[in-house]
C-alpha cells in the first residue's frame, strides 16, 4: 500500500513536534534532569483524587450529558464569576471538553472555512498552527518581541489583519515566554478588533498562574464578550494534566456548534474526571494559591540565577516558564539545547520549537523541585564558563 496516497495530504505535511528527541536522549542518561516538560510537578491534590475515586465507588461510570455534568457546568460558571467577574450560563454557554486542547481544536473547527486566516502570536504553544492548518485554515504568525514583553501589540495585530482573517488566538499567560497581557494591553487589542468580525480564541489555561495582580480575561473587556471564545481547563491550575479536563465558554451559537462536533466526535468528557473537577472547583481555591506561591518562589530563584550567570532574561510573570536569551553564547537555540543536554545532561527546550521567532531563546520550566533548579543552575554555570 502506498499510504502517502491514502493519508490526508494536509496531515502528512504537518511535522511532528521536534521536542521528543531531547527527551529520548535524556531518558537514556543517568542523573539527567529535565526542565523541559510543560506540566506541573505536583500530583493532583488528594481531595480531588478522592472525589474521582469516590465517583467510581458509587458506580458513576456511564456517559454524561454531551456538554458535561450540569453540576460541573454550574461550578464552572460560579468559578468564572468568582475569580474573573465573567458571566456564562451553564445551560448553553459552557461545554466541558477533553482538556483545553480539544477545546482549541473544536473552537477552530467550528469556525474555519478553507483559506480562513488564523492569527497566531508566537512564540507560543505548539498546537495552534497545526490545528488551524488541519482544520483547513491558514495560520498567520504574529511575532512578539522581548522588548514588548512578548505581548501582542495593537500595531502588530493591525498589520496582520487581512480581509480573510477570521480568528485571533490569544495565548496568555503565555507558554513558552511567561508573558501576560494586562488590562490596558487587552483594551488596545480590543480597540483593533471591535469593528471587525474577527473572533478571539482566548487560551487562558495558565490564568491562575499569574504572579503580578490577577489575571484579566479579554472576555471581560467592553465589546469583546460576544466575540470571544474562552478556553480553560484544570490541567495547570489544579495540577490535573492526566485527567484531561477542559472547557470552552462563549456565545450560545458558538457553543452550540462546538457541542455538535464534540457530540459526534467525543460523546462526553471522561466521567470520573468530571466528578473530580467538581470537587476542584468547590474546594480547590486554596490548592491554587498554594501551588502558585510555590511556583512564584521558584520563578524568582531561577530568574535571579539566570541573570546572575549573565543570561538576559525577560521577567515572565505568568505560566511556569522563563525564556532567557542565549544569544550571548553565540550558539543557535537548537545547538545550545543539544550541547547542554549532551555535556551537562539537562533538557531545556529550544525557543524555535515555538516558532521561528524563538531563535536565540530557550524555554526553561520551573515546575520542578528547588533541588533540581539549583543543580541545573550549577550545571549551567559550568557550561557557560566552558563556552566563554
Amino acid at each position, binding site marked *: 500500500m502506498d499510504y502517502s496516497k491514502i493519508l490526508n495530504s494536509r496531515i502528512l505535511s504537518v511535522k511532528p*513536534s521536534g*521536542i*521528543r528527541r531531547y*527527551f529520548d536522549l535524556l531518558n537514556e542518561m543517568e542523573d539527567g534532569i529535565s526542565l*523541559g*516538560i*510543560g*506540566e506541573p510537578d505536583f500530583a493532583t491534590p488528594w481531595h480531588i483524587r478522592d472525589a474521582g475515586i469516590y465517583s467510581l465507588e458509587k458506580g458513576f461510570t456511564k456517559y454524561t450529558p454531551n456538554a458535561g455534568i450540569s453540576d460541573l457546568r454550574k461550578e464552572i460558571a460560579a468559578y468564572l464569576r468568582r475569580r474573573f467577574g465573567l458571566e456564562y450560563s451553564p445551560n448553553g454557554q459552557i461545554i466541558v471538553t477533553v482538556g483545553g486542547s480539544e477545546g482549541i481544536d473544536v473552537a477552530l473547527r467550528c469556525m474555519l472555512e478553507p483559506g480562513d486566516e488564523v492569527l497566531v502570536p508566537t512564540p507560543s*504553544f*505548539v498546537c495552534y498552527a497545526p490545528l488551524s492548518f488541519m482544520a483547513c485554515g491558514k495560520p498567520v504568525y504574529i511575532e512578539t518581541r522581548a522588548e514588548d514583553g512578548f505581548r501582542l501589540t495593537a500595531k502588530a495585530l493591525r498589520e496582520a489583519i487581512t480581509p480573510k482573517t477570521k480568528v485571533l488566538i490569544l495565548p496568555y499567560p503565555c*507558554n513558552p515566554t511567561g508573558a501576560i497581557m494586562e488590562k490596558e494591553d487587552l483594551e488596545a487589542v480590543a480597540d483593533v478588533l471591535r469593528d471587525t468580525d474577527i473572533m478571539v480564541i482566548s487560551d487562558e489555561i495558565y490564568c491562575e498562574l499569574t504572579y503580578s495582580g490577577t489575571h484579566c480575561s479579554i472576555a471581560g473587556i467592553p465589546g469583546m464578550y460576544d466575540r470571544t471564545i474562552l478556553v480553560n481547563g484544570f490541567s495547570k491550575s489544579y495540577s490535573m*494534566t492526566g485527567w484531561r479536563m477542559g472547557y470552552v465558554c462563549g456565545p450560545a451559537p458558538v457553543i452550540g456548534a462546538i457541542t455538535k462536533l464534540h457530540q459526534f466526535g467525543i460523546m462526553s468528557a471522561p466521567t470520573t474526571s468530571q466528578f473530580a473537577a467538581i470537587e476542584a472547583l468547590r474546594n480547590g481555591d486554596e490548592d491554587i494559591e498554594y501551588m502558585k*506561591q*510555590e511556583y*512564584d*518562589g*521558584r520563578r*524568582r*530563584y531561577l530568574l*535571579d540565577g539566570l541573570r546572575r550567570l549573565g543570561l538576559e532574561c525577560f521577567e515572565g510573570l505568568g505560566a511556569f516558564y522563563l525564556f532567557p536569551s542565549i544569544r550571548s553564547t553565540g550558539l543557535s537555540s537548537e545547538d545550545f539545547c543539544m550541547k547542554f543536554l549532551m555535556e551537562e545532561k539537562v533538557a531545556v527546550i529550544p525557543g524555535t520549537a515555538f516558532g521561528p521567532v524563538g531563535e536565540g531563546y530557550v524555554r526553561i520550566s520551573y515546575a520542578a523541585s*528547588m533541588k533540581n533548579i*539549583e543543580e541545573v543552575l550549577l550545571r549551567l554555570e559550568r557550561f557557560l564558563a566552558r563556552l566563554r
Partner: protein
Amino acid sequence: MKNLLRLLEDDCSLNTEQLAALAGMTEEETKAALEEYKKQGILLGYEPIINWDLYDEEYITALIEVTVIPQRGDGYDRIAQRIYQYEEVESLYLMSGSFDLCVIISGHSLKQVALFVSQKLSTIEGVSGTATHFILKKYKEKRMIFKPQEDYKERFVLD
C-alpha cells in the same frame, strides 16, 4: 509569598539565597529575620528526617502513655522536666484525654527501651502508670513519606 518559617518547615535544607528568592526578600533581610526568630525562641533548630530502616542500624521508637499525679504549685511541669532531661526522650507532650504525658523515645534495642521505662521513667516520683507502644513501621513523619509512590515512566512530552 510564603512565610520564611513555612518554607523552612517544608524544607530546612534550603540555603539563605534560596530562602530569600522563595520568600521574595533580600538575602540580608532573610538572615536578619532568621536571627530574630532564633533570638525569640520561635525557631528552635533544624532536624533531618532519617529512614533508619534503610540504614544498617537497629533503631526502635516507642510511644509511651504516662499517667502522673500533678504536683501542687507546679502542675505537670516539674514531672515533665524530669522526664525530658533523659537523652532517650525525643519528644514529650502534655495530652488531653485518658493519659497525661506522651513520651516518644528511641533506642537501639528493645532492651534499651524496656530498661528506660522500667528503671527510669516509672520510678520518677509522681508517675503513676505507663503503657508502652512500639512503632512497627513509619509511613510518614513531618509530612515526609518514607516510601513515596514512584511515578510511571512513560510521560507525554509534546507541549
